[in-house]
């Protein structure tokens, strides 16, 4: 069953089009890399999928539930970690996890929460206030909160920001593990090497329109004139610099 289905999604802010006619879907176990230059509409797309922004037109459904028409059910299957996540400064690390468990009506969360704290090396910070955490630790806590209720769709906006090399490695591993267990990911990042390492599929946006959507392997062949062994970086710049979104849509 399709976990995420975005169909003809449009979003405009006071007449300014941020995203136009975007359609794509994500299956269980897939990791979709969301790429695009600044202002391409990546964060708007993620926020609309998370049910934070209403679409101007189009439909977004998670596990068959429309995010706008039936938001509570749709959001039960979802976790969203924004770029530079904000935490409740006066709450401790453990209280964040307790709150997330309660909001998702998890009866027994302790074992899973402790395992996550262990995995992300936050055991020693269990009783620390969020305001006392470093940038990287805050990011790790936000990820722990996202994983805790085992959602089937996880949206990550620049997930590696603030993490040290070990944190990045742990994060990559955790994404792959969760995907192996059936979770679907949408990962927005400017780190092309990370996307290349992790993602099974790509969605390239430019000025709010889709330039490419499909498996990573097909991305190179979609852009005529690119050799098969070119890096994702070459592909990205070829796709977005001087790209004609309309022509690119036909290509993908």
């Amino acid at each position, binding site marked *: 069953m399709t976990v995420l289905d975005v169909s003809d999604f449009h979003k405009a802010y006071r007449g300014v089009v941020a995203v136009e006619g975007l359609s794509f879907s994500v299956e269980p176990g897939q990791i979709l890399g969301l790429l695009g230059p600044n202002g391409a509409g990546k964060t708007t797309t993620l926020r609309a999928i*998370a*049910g*934070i*922004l*209403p679409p101007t037109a189009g439909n977004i459904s998670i596990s068959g539930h429309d995010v706008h028409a039936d*938001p*509570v*059910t749709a*959001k*039960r299957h*979802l*976790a*969203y970690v*924004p770029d530079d*996540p*904000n*935490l*409740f*400064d*006066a*709450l401790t690390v453990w*209280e964040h996890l*307790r*709150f*997330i*468990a*309660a*909001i*998702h*009506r998890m009866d027994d969360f302790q074992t899973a929460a402790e395992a996550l704290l262990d995995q992300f090396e936050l055991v020693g910070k269990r009783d620390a206030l969020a*305001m006392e955490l*470093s*940038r990287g630790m805050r990011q790790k806590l*936000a990820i722990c*909160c996202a994983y805790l209720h085992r959602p089937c769709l996880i949206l990550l906006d620049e997930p590696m920001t603030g993490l040290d090399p070990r944190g990045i490695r742990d994060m990559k591993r955790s994404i792959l593990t969760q995907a192996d267990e059936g979770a679907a990911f949408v990962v927005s990042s400017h780190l092309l090497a990370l996307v290349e390492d992790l993602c099974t599929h790509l969605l390239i946006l430019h000025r709010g329109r889709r330039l490419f959507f499909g498996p990573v392997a097909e991305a190179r062949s979609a852009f005529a004139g690119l050799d098969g062994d070119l890096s994702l970086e070459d592909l990205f710049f070829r796709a977005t610099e001087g790209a004609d979104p309309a022509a690119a849509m036909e290509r993908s």
Partner: protein
Amino acid sequence: MTLAPPPGLRLLMLLQAKAVVRRAWRGAGTLRGGFFLFLALLVLAMWLGPAIWMRGDAPPTDPHRVRLFMPLILLASCVTTLLTGSSDRAIAFTPAEVDFLFAAPVSRRQLLFYKLAKSAFAHGLMAAPMTLIFMRHGGSWIGVYLAIAFSLALVQLLNMAVLLTAETVGKRLYSRLRIVAVAAMGALVVWAFMIALARQTGDARAMLSAFVESTPGRIALAPFAPFAWTLTATGVGQLVLALAGCAAVLGLLVGIIFHLDADYLEASIVAGRRAAERTRQRRSGGWMSTRGAAWRNLPMFPRLGGAGAMAWRQTLKAVRGAKGLLIVLLILVVGVGPSLWVMRDGGGSAHPDLFGGLVAALAWATVFLSGTLRMDFRGDLDVLPMLRQLPISPMALTLGQLAVPIAILTICQGAALTMLAVAFPVAAPWALAAIALAAPFNTVVIGVENLVFLLYPSRAPSGPGDLQGFGRQIALMFLKVLVVAVACGLAFGAGALALATSGRFALAAVAAISTLLVESLGIVALVRWAFVRFNPSAHTAA
């Protein structure tokens, strides 16, 4: 429709309430934390104490007057909040709430319920100390407490209802509806005002009474009347009736809010962003907004070892935020200058009572502007690491950083003192001496502000319950006042000594100015030292 918040939201409210208590007592066991907590409690006791102990001494306010004017005050509060844009807060959630709750499996109505419940808790807490202050205007403790708590809720609910209506009907229709509503309210006010004028009493209070008691005045103020009745209720029966009126008004607003079920999430994010922007502006430049002011430009100042570039940057900040600054200065000039001119007597001198008022206004403006003109280190906390790595000497950088607020403050005082000299020719020598003293005095004041900031950099208290943060602010304020008082005392002492020994006013002024000059140089050197020892990694965001 499901209104009751799910267990997760209930737990969040509980944890946040617990956090308020924890914030108040955290670190209280340490000497420093305990001292700040003690100081905060002492100030609170000094603030509230007189209201408790002297409640029997002060004559109670006539209940009729309270019932007459409180609805008017409430109406004014609601209208002001709606017109000034601070109504945004009614639907604004904190950044953490946006990130965690907007994508969580809770309905919009449940989120609103959560927000209202949280606000009700805050209103309940705020109403407690306010009850002590307003007690003499009311009939009973419980009546005053409930009237205040419900009045705070009324302002919030009305704003929320208006904003959610705007989201539901669309911005364009909302603008039209607002025009109709404002026009209707305006017509009522004009009608009531005409009636009041017809009485021709000449007494402002009597006219206001006539305005409030007229038919259109009663119609416009009817929704606010039960709150005044609650405040002044003396018997149980009166209180129950008044509370029923309050409940009806608040219930109607709550009903509208939940019935609309507006999709407010996007508007809420925008409101939250605006609130964050306002906070950032307050931190970096006081009340000055630089939005849309990029076109106001200035040529680069002479380099002066780097000090010129620093002063240019700060002046640009002042120029781009000049709208607010000009308004303040305009109020001072329009308010003080013509008043003095009009009140000149036959001898060409203004009324002596004005002298004290003008000096007090000058002192207040100095305190206000010195705290508000943050075009120096205080407004640059987030960019201090960048300043530290600039290839200019710390002294040049310090001078450039301090120059602009000192100059603005000195110009303002110079203008006010000149007016004083013109209005009171007798006081002209004193005014001229004060003008000469202004620049070194302002260097001391702004220097002390920056010195204390660099030694103990802090933002505002981190949230409700941060009593230690409040105590810390009080301690720092006390420290600043103490240092400025000692500096001024020494200058005054030097002047007095010179006057006593020589009997010449000019010599006394020179002695005082020289002392202040030496002190100001010392303060600038101390600010430079504090800047050099400032540790960005300990005091700025990671």
